[in-house]
């Protein structure tokens, strides 16, 4: 396709633009042009959501159509199974706990790391910025499956990570097969009150134990693959900041740390909001890595709601429960995207003070 040099000679002055015929034709063309996208989106996004909503309140077993006469309405039973106790509840509780820790640790680290990368790469005095940018971004474009395969090798018992640990005279764990929770620090049981109290079929001791060693390996991979994308978002924002503010801060003799904390960071508030929100959305949807690496193991410590929803439906044929988990996950994601909005809302007095300090 050549970039056609379309030269326009505006000879025609004030044409009768919105002629009735053209307008009607435009309307027809408008619908015709958007029809393919609308049909596909409707068929594979809107209709599925309605169908799944029905399945989540039905006892469909996966055979035949969910709309056939043999399928019954069970009300909120599938949702109740998630909290009522029993195996479904404890699986759901474990999945929630795993993913909650995943979000809690991955989102702040990947946000801070991507900001650091952007700040480093943005320094005008640095040569080879393009090279570094490419190096940091490359993991983001590769397939999550390929990276997971690589991670399985790096974190295997005889892998590169344990070889590195051995250099320092220590012995690395069998990462992807180690279910021990890191914040238990090797203890097998906690204080009495933590063992007794429980929620969703798990004791407080288990809830507070943090991610398993296996999950930590997966978390490091998430940080590795997402930091490049978020670095680019920060980089775009950094390059749109006005240089005058920094010059003013420099004239005032602000140290570079102070300038960063009081000038750069407040100006990046909107970007940080975007990065944290996107990070949360991504972290609650971990699926590919689990499917490829651990299938929820060892001892269910890498089970996530997304994977549980899949395995409950396709594995155990509990389609109603699987669909219910999907909708609960949707609700969780909505709530968690609202949290950063609330945390990073413009707090007027402080922002005003920050501006005053700069001016």
């Amino acid at each position, binding site marked *: 396709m050549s970039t056609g040099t379309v030269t326009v000679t505006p000879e025609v002055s004030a044409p009768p633009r919105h002629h009735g015929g053209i307008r009607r034709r435009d309307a027809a063309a408008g619908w015709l*042009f958007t029809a393919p*996208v609308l049909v*596909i989106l409707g068929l*594979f996004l809107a209709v599925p959501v309605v169908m799944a909503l029905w399945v989540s309140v039905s006892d469909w077993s996966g055979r035949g159509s969910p709309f056939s006469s043999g399928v019954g309405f069970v009300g909120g039973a599938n949702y109740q199974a998630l909290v009522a106790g029993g195996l479904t509840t404890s699986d759901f509780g474990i999945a929630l706990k795993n993913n909650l820790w995943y979000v809690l640790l991955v989102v702040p680290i990947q946000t801070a790391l991507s900001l650091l990368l952007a700040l480093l790469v943005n320094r005008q005095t640095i040569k080879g910025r393009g090279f570094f940018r490419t190096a940091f*971004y490359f993991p983001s*474009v590769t397939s999550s*499956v390929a990276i997971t395969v690589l991670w399985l090798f790096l974190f295997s018992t005889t892998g590169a990570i344990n070889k590195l640990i051995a250099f320092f005279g220590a012995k690395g764990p069998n990462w992807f097969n180690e279910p021990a929770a890191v914040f238990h620090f090797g203890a097998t049981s906690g204080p009495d009150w933590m063992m007794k109290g429980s929620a969703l079929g798990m004791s407080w001791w288990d809830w507070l134990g943090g991610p398993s060693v296996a999950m930590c390996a997966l978390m490091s991979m998430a940080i590795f693959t997402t930091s490049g994308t978020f670095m680019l978002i920060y*980089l775009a924002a950094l390059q749109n900041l006005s240089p005058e503010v920094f010059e003013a801060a420099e004239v005032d003799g602000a140290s570079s740390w102070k300038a960063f904390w009081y000038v750069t960071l407040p100006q990046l508030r909107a970007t940080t909001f975007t990065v944290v929100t996107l990070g949360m959305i991504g972290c609650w949807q971990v699926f590919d890595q689990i*499917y490829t690496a651990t299938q929820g193991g060892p001892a269910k410590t890498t089970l996530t709601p997304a994977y549980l929803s899949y395995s409950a*439906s396709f594995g155990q044929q509990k389609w109603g429960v699987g669909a219910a988990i999907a909708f609960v996950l949707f609700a969780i994601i909505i709530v968690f995207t609202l949290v950063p909005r609330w945390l990073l809302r413009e707090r007027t007095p402080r922002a005003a003070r920050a501006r005053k300090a700069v001016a």
Partner: protein
Amino acid sequence: MSAVAVSGKPGHRPSRAAVATTLTYVVLVALAIIYIFPFLINLATVAKTDADATANPLSLWPEPWSAAALRRLFLNSDFPTWFMNSLIITLAVTAGRVFFDSLAGYALARLPFRGRTVVYGALVAVMAVPSVVLLIPKFLVINQLGIFNSYAGLIIPLLADAAGVFIMKNFFESIPVSVEEAARIDGAGAFRVFWSVVLPMATPALVTIVILSFQGSWNELAHFIVAANDPSLTPLTKGVAQLASGALSAGSQYPVKLAAGALMTIPVAIVFFIFQKRLMNASGGAVKE
């Protein structure tokens, strides 16, 4: 190298700036090694024997060099089938998205029709639904439509791409309307104007769609898991994931798995290095050099 940063101020500033620059380099190089080294290990392991990969996981020099992993992958596995399937799906999805996204984007940008704002709102709403939530629902519809275990089921659902429509819409809004008007006065219909006047000018935006679609459909996994279970319809991501989880082979056999991972990365890597500037612009908003 630090002299640039110094604006002729007296005192200790030059040395401080030099220290800062040196420190930045040290941190950057250390981070770059962390980001690049895993991929180098991956490449080296492709040519290692199983025993060498286990004994020397950190070494970048295979000892001895071995083509066993590649030979097994090409002659003794379904890898060629997976590769072909990925290629067919990716090409079809990319072509479809380029056409449909630009058509819809043009209509939303230029054609005044009743219900345009509703269509626009619907697209925004669709983008908010997380894809993992749609895993089961998509399977239900694919099953209901009778396209489970077919290329149609693998390809058509991926053609839904609201983000691409927005990219095209924004682009069309940025080009002057006068060009089209001249053609329309000459009596050309909406599709003629779109196809022969507007689309040729949209090459930069189309390239962005091509890159994002290629990368997205080549790396897609979840949809392929729910859309088919016939081994002859398995694409790379699903095949390699099953290979990795040991469903298809016994033992660790890391060189074979890593060779599969490296080979599946090559096409996206090529696209990445050719279009990296545009790709990074598309992902990061508007990165200016």
